[in-house]
């Protein structure tokens, strides 16, 4: 067996591919790595669900990043201020405290408010949807930076900690073949769990419920939907606002579950990677989930290669690649995928087009 593997690894060029596969097989099932892949995917999953909700009903939302940033900040500050006023005792699973829960709520409310703004601009007054998203991004960057200096910097000890993770029973991780996958998904906090839950629920609802049928109709052909009595404007509003809930949860995850602190420009453009995940996932929740996992996998791989460099010629080659370029990998992957080098995905036909009852569409 070992001889066969060494023979495969020794083949010029193709051998490198085998080495890579061999490396991934040894590295990915490690609990730390597998956990990290799911963990880093959570904000992307929620961001992408926000994108799916909006674009399936015909509204382009490039403001997801701003919504996430603003929610992360407001959630953090709300939890921090409440924690100073009345420090909460942990109760129940995940080390929940009242300030943390209030923080999540505040983050979600922020996401909802911003999505109402986006909905109003792009649905009611039919302003340009990409400009509307840009406004949200600039406003989120500006307001969080402004308030960060005013509120957080004078009070450096602000914070309410973060949610804990569920410890995985030993029996599960020792299940052969799939045990590590289940373990990676179980060893997470409450917001991460709700992300997985939301993906499944949304996938079923979007393709198996009356609401889902109507949403898709409104996104493909709003005029036809209107003709059969669907209130296009109302449905779009509702869906964009639900999208805001997801963006708010993505933000809350960043400051209340992933870490207990806030930094300027915390999202680092992950809202835009989430948008790419929507496109790669062909506007389906499950697809977007898969794409989000792909991106977090690329990020995790960068860390893994630094910690445990692969042996052999593959390791020599990877060691020569500067670490900054590994950092750019998810963004490069996004461009490559967007350019359609890996299959083409078709957007909802009315994506980005405002609807007016009497106007030509």
């Amino acid at each position, binding site marked *: 067996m070992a001889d066969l593997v060494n023979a495969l690894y020794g083949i010029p060029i193709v051998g490198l591919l085998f080495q890579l596969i061999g490396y991934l097989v040894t590295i990915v099932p490690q609990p730390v790595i597998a956990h990290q892949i799911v963990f880093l995917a959570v904000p992307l999953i929620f961001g992408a669900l926000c994108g799916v909700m909006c674009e399936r009903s015909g509204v382009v939302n490039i403001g997801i990043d701003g919504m996430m940033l603003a929610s992360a900040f407001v959630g953090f500050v709300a939890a921090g201020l409440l924690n100073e006023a009345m420090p909460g005792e942990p109760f129940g699973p995940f080390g929940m405290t009242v300030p943390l829960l209030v923080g999540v709520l505040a983050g979600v409310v922020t996401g909802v408010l911003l999505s109402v703004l986006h909905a109003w601009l792009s649905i009611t007054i039919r302003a*340009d949807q990409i*400009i509307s998203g840009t*406004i949200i991004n600039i406003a989120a960057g*500006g307001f969080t930076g402004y308030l960060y200096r005013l509120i957080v910097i004078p009070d450096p000890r602000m914070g309410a900690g973060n949610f804990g993770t569920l410890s995985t029973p030993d029996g599960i991780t020792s299940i052969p073949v799939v045990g590590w996958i289940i373990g990676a998904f179980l060893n997470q906090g409450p917001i991460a769990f709700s992300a997985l839950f939301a993906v499944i629920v949304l996938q079923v609802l979007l393709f198996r419920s009356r609401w889902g049928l109507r949403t898709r109709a409104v996104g493909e052909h709003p005029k036809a939907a209107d003709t059969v009595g669907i209130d296009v404007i109302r449905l779009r509003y509702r869906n964009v606002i639900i999208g805001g809930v997801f963006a708010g949860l993505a933000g809350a995850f960043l400051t209340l579950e992933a870490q207990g602190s806030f930094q300027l420009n915390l999202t680092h453009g992950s809202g835009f990677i989430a948008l790419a995940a929507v496109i790669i996932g062909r506007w389906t929740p499950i697809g977007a989930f898969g794409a989000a996992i792909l991106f977090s996998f690329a990020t995790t791989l960068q860390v893994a290669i630094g910690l445990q460099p692969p042996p052999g010629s593959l390791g020599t080659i990877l060691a020569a690649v500067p670490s900054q370029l590994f950092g750019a990998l998810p963004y490069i992957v996004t461009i490559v995928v967007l350019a359609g080098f890996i299959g083409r995905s078709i957007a909802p036909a009315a994506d980005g087009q405002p609807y007016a009852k009497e106007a030509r569409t």
Partner: protein
Amino acid sequence: MSLSADPVPAGTPAMSAPPTRGRWRGWFRGTALVPLLAVLLAFAVGSILILISSVATTGHLDPSLPFRAYGAMLEGAGITTDPDAIFSGLINTLTVAAPLVLGGLSVGIAFKAGLFNIGGFGQFIMGALGAAVTGAAVSAWPAPAAIAAALAVGSLTGAAWGFIPGALKALTGAHEVVTTIMLNTIATSVIGWLVTGPFLAPGFSFSRTGDIGNAAIPIILGRNLDAGVLLSVIAVPAIWFLLFRSTLGFQIRAVGANPSAARYAGMRPTLIIIFTMSLAGFLFGVAGSVEVLGNTHFVNASYGTTYGFDAITVALLGRTHPVGIVLAALLFGAMRAGSGLMQITTGIPVEMVDVLQAIVLLFIAANVIVRNVFRIRASAGGLAELETVTKSYSSGAVR
């Protein structure tokens, strides 16, 4: 691609024709009034925010704080009575406005072609890197040759960073809004790598590019206004001529108004889109090069800029017209230049400028608010070209 192909290439928006005598009033109401009132209204909303912030900075509600903050901002921008402060403030304003003019023209011309260039950040810093690295390599050349070489390489690096999303959009349909943002982050990584690796200059306490020596653009006025400002001055009529007096400019506007119609009329949207994005990158590349050669003189490993996003506001506030862009760039140049003094003297963070920007943009996008507040019946406050940007969001290649 939209099926509702408008057969008339509506590439002649209101501002393209210079208003004849007697129509200035109508032009003012139709074009300039909404942006002006949007700025006014944004400052009013901002003052409410500052008033609330006074609780954090002074401990109680201080009604004078908005006035003091805006006063400090004006003073820092050179709008004051102290003669020394006027000179240095105006110089600072011009120093910030010069790259904003180039950036505004870049975003503006992209809008004319129905493209949204959010990639100014990446194009600017890549241009800066190109100029800094070349400048260090040719630092011993005679000054004119060294400056020309560094400027040329920097500008072309920026152009290349604009060419990529242009080609991707035209050939594969990957929307420039997402690709340019990705390229912004990639540019940061590339600079982090090159400045700590191949182009790391020895003998400094931190990672940076080498000394540019003779490639430095000379200062012509005050403490920091370099001769590079002349490039911004030249660019304005040049872009105006290109857009409104040349065949190429007509094609750019036609593609922006309706790519299908432009193609039926025998134009080639693919090439126009690639050209326009490259030109947009080039303009930001010039801005980045001038910033490095005239001002900072090197690039460090975490080089960044606010010009990329400021330029979007400048272009929209200036209604994508070169003259409007100059006025908007001067306004935001003044705000950025004055914000430092505002933060020092009143404790209101410099990010106030970003907040004001967002509010200005909001009022321009939702000009219905402005029209209701001031009870005016101005004609459309929006921009026709923007429709193409959003329509093309997921419509595939333009061929």
